[in-house]
């Protein structure tokens, strides 16, 4: 009896995929958050002063994506109205139960606090100079304090520094636990590896840094302002280093699997070469990793013109973002395409209009940009050139 989409034998309940495109989206989004925050911390904690023009941008990017992060999960749940249970009776043996607390911690104590401390002077100033509804919003954002004296600002700076320092391991936790959710499933040999949280983390940093650099270049172009080349060159350097580590880790996983060739290997190998040919070999490895790495590497070895560098960086970042998405796809979807009997494969039937379908996913990916535009309207990431 032939089941459409199934080759070989699958346990009867395995034919239908459980974790859909939305579960691919979730680690992608939290990865962008973690990566953008790490870029922000480069300036704040590690004093890489060259990337300062992107500091506020990175914070707002992280915030915009973080606000959207729970949505794919809510849409996926069979009973989203019961999601409060994770706060009421979290099961301490479940990595997933950590989500609610880590998310809230990161949103409030790290990101919102840091954004507030950074933008406070502007918020107070704007609460005095604007009118009507805008003024009310700014007054609410001041949380009632109008104190922006130099001494207070120094204290803000010190506290902001401390928050960023705490924020780095918090960002690692926010995204690392997702890697652990997959890496700790002994039933699934595609997922089960201690490397998983580390691979997720480094690919998150790569995607976040690439996203902020791309946003910066695009935003400057849209606002018709000059791009600070020293800034983007420095970001490209850190992107390159992070990418090299990420690529090394992924290759280590691949080589280790191929060498050990345990009971799952032949089945997984076949799956990669057939069902994951486009998403893994072409999109993730070649276009998403090797091409961007080459573009970044040549810029470390030779000096090109500013225009050429901008073009290469833009291409590299765009390809990187596609490649890291493909990586999440290959982990989540790939892990469900093969049978745990190692005797068969199924297919992912992606819906279009259901709550877990393609349209929902596209909407969720566009939403952070909408939020971002709203955020930069109220919290200016760049000093205004014109006087108001």
């Amino acid at each position, binding site marked *: 009896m032939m089941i459409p989409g199934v080759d070989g034998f699958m346990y009867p309940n395995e034919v239908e995929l459980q974790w859909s495109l939305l579960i691919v989206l979730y680690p992608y989004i939290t990865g962008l958050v973690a990566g953008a925050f790490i870029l922000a911390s480069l300036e704040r904690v590690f004093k890489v002063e060259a990337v300062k023009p992107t500091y506020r941008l990175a914070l707002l990017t992280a915030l915009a994506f973080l606000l959207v992060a729970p949505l794919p999960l809510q849409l996926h749940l069979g009973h989203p109205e019961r999601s*409060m249970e994770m*706060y*009421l*009776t979290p*099961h301490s043996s479940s990595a997933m139960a950590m989500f609610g607390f880590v998310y809230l911690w990161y949103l*409030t*104590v790290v990101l*919102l*606090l840091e954004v*507030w401390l950074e933008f*406070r002077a502007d918020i107070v100033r704007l609460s005095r100079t604007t009118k009507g509804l805008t003024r009310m919003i700014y007054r609410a954002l001041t*949380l*009632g*304090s109008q*104190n922006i*004296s130099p*001494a*207070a600002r120094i*204290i803000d700076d010190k*506290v902001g520094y401390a928050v960023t320092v705490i924020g780095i391991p918090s960002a690692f936790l926010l995204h690392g636990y997702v890697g652990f959710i997959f890496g700790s499933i002994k039933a699934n040999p595609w997922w089960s590896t201690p490397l998983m949280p580390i691979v997720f983390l480094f690919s998150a940093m790569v995607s976040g840094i690439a996203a902020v650099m791309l946003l910066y270049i695009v935003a400057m172009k849209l606002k018709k302002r000059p791009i600070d080349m020293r800034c983007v060159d420095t970001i490209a350097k850190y992107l390159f280093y992070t990418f090299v580590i990420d690529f090394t880790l992924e290759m280590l996983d691949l080589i280790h699997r191929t060498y050990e060739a345990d009971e799952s290997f032949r089945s997984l190998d076949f799956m990669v070469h057939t069902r994951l040919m486009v998403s893994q070999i072409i999109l993730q490895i070649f276009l998403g990793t090797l091409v961007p790495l080459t573009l970044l590497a040549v810029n470390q070895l030779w000096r090109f013109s500013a225009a050429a560098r901008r073009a290469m960086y833009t291409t590299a970042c765009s390809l990187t973002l596609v490649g890291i998405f493909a990586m999440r796809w290959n982990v989540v979807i790939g892990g469900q395409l093969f049978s745990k009997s190692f005797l068969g494969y199924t297919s992912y039937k992606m819906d279009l209009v259901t709550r877990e379908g393609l349209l929902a996913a596209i909407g969720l990916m566009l939403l952070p940009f909408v939020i971002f535009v709203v955020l930069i309207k109220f919290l200016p990431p760049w000093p205004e050139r014109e006087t108001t």
Partner: protein
Amino acid sequence: MRRLLNEWVHLVRPAAVLIAAMGVFLIVRAAVIPKDFGKYGHYRPAALDLVRSRPIGYAGQDTCVMCHDDQAKLRASGKHAHVACEACHGPLAKHADDPGANIPKLPEVADLCRRCHEKDAAKPKGFPQVVTAEHNSGVACDSCHQPHNPHL
């Protein structure tokens, strides 16, 4: 000293918002957590009762023989003695509760017999099995075999 404190005071505000939110959460939590959650383990004990409350579908042979004494005697000496009545007649707990109201339909004989007795290499060698196409050439199984005591 007073001036220094002034410069820190604005930090109290986000802290206050956070603490107030945590307070609300703790109160709501105390009210909403299911009663005696955790009594046997990390779950609601009421879940056990929920699963147990499912109505029974298959009554079991012991219930059938309470009324159908004659069939019981016929079967007890035959090869189908250990085959449950409901394996062929379907779930009949409802019938046992109210025999008049729920009269079961007799099963389709041919498919029923074939499912177990059609010859197949994967079945254990000692198990009675025939190639029905050669065995009965279209004649119904129960023309020769009495299902309750089938051995001829």
